[in-house]
């Protein structure tokens, strides 16, 4: 964990609205684990004010400019432009300054005794699964089910294929792969019981469905959640999610930046609880 004042190495559009950004990041190739994230500061002014959380897509080395120097370590992010922060990011160019706090959070933990692994990714939720896949393919058979609205939302899958991951695609408009939700693919695969382990990241409705399917099939599931974050280090308590056993009267919150963003599905509360309102804006 460190706060690096560093620079962008490259920043490229890979699909309409989706970008890959390489950032010089010494230490990351050793320290970053699959499922971890960084808090990125993209400009000096206060708009946007807060850092933005991004999953680690991969870490690696690029050759140095000169043979006698060690290669440079980088971290790669893949992001979707959705608002002010990511709009600013899209404009960054090689050499621009950024600040990188990380690597942060829990990572995925694979059970070595299970030979088959299934990854389920929705849209930009694919990101943390790539670094996980690079690890898993070393010892296991890995499948990826990936979904999105249209084919533009299906990104980096050739990268997964190059690792030897078996990729199946579903799009809501049928422009690539099966038509429909990615969860259909998972459901089909888990129809006949077999020993496997599922790792999922994507929008909440997708995770809800994945959780139901895995619970029914009694398959172990780890999910990576996206929560609003201010600090990323457990200080603000802004990023909590509801933990298993949460009720209105006895709320149980887990910090998603320190206990997460990857959680075992059983440690979370999957019921839709009603919002409670307090008078006064207590902190």
């Amino acid at each position, binding site marked *: 964990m*460190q706060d690096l004042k560093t620079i962008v190495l490259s920043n490229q559009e890979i699909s309409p609205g989706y970008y890959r950004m390489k950032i010089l990041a010494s230490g990351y190739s050793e320290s970053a684990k699959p499922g971890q994230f960084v808090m990125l500061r993209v400009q000096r002014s206060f708009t*946007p004010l807060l850092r933005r959380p991004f999953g680690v897509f991969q870490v690696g080395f690029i050759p140095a400019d000169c043979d006698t120097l060690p290669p440079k370590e980088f971290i790669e992010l893949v992001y979707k432009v959705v608002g002010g922060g990511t709009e600013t990011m899209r404009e960054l160019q090689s050499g621009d300054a950024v600040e990188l706090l990380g690597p942060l959070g829990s990572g995925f933990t694979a059970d070595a005794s299970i030979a088959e692994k299934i990854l389920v990714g929705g849209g930009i939720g694919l990101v943390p699964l790539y670094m996980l896949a690079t690890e898993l393919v070393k010892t296991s058979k890995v499948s990826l089910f990936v979904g999105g609205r249209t084919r533009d939302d299906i990104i980096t899958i050739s990268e997964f294929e190059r690792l030897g991951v078996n990729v199946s695609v579903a799009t809501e408009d049928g422009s690539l792969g099966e038509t429909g939700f990615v969860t259909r693919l998972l459901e089909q695969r888990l129809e006949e019981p077999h020993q496997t382990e599922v790792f999922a990241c994507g929008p909440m409705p997708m995770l809800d469905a994945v959780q139901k399917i895995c619970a029914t099939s009694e398959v172990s599931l780890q999910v990576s959640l996206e929560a609003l974050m201010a600090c990323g280090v457990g200080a603000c308590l802004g990023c909590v999610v509801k933990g298993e056993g949460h009720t209105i009267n006895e709320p149980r*919150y887990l910090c998603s930046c320190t206990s997460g963003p990857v959680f075992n599905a059983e440690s979370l509360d999957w019921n839709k609880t009603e919002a409670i*309102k307090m008078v006064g804006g207590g902190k």
Partner: protein
Amino acid sequence: MSNAVEQVLKPKLAVEIAGLKLKNPIMPASGTFGYGEEYSPYIDLNQLGAIVTKGMSLNPKAGNNTPRICETVSGMLNAIGLQNVGVDAFIKDKMAFLSQYDTPVIVNFFGNTQEEYGEVAARLDDVPGVAALEMNISCPNVKHGGIVFGTDPQAAAAVVTSVRKRTTKPLIVKLTPNVTDIQILARATEEAGADALSLINTLTGMAVDIKTRKPRLANTIGGLSGPAIRPVAVRLVHQVVQAVKVPVIGIGGITCAADALEFLIVGAKAVQVGTANFVNPDAMATIIADLEKFCVEEGIADINDLIGTLEL
């Protein structure tokens, strides 16, 4: 002569607040620095003037429903709901870590009733390593229709008086900015026994998601912090400094040494840095270094010579 040069080269940043000796006037604002530990990988806690903890209550508090935070223009809203481990767990689990450092620990606390406030203060009173208490009076008084203690001079004075009886530690009272006349509140709490005042807590605010038509916070309203609120904070600190004799700690939107200096010049003896910690975990270290530079450039040998030098 060589002595004078040395003084200018290394200006004195130490300040004293209610008997508390601080290495420098920079400390975190409660709720933005966790229990200290969270930021210890990124900033040397020994550098700080003091450490101020997340607000403690008698019993552990789970906090509000989510979403709890949202970003606004140059600011953020939060409605964390004062989530904390409770004062006993704090003493048991968190103080050992904090006591390693040569930096005074100020424990922020609150209650939902006058009695709760008193009880939390009492439990902290004999805890070694607790240098001072900071009392957050921006909480609703559940026994009196939920009116916020800190918005009513009588209620504020009463709760401070009752806490004062239960602690021998220096007592800092943290004021809310959401009042018509801060000077009345400041005098009421000073007379009730506050050794120092700190301000501002967050401004009450709200934001709406125009697509879902829901408030952006589950709690509907929350507290606005960050650079956006600084002018309001500077004004309130200026007014309080003129109204009371006890030292004042300035808070609100501080991100850099220049921001901190505005508060010191109007008369704050120290300042707290809040939201800026989220943006720059080493914000306070930079501020301390830049304060020193500023003093050198301006020929100020002792930061106390700068405090309260506003020219009207």
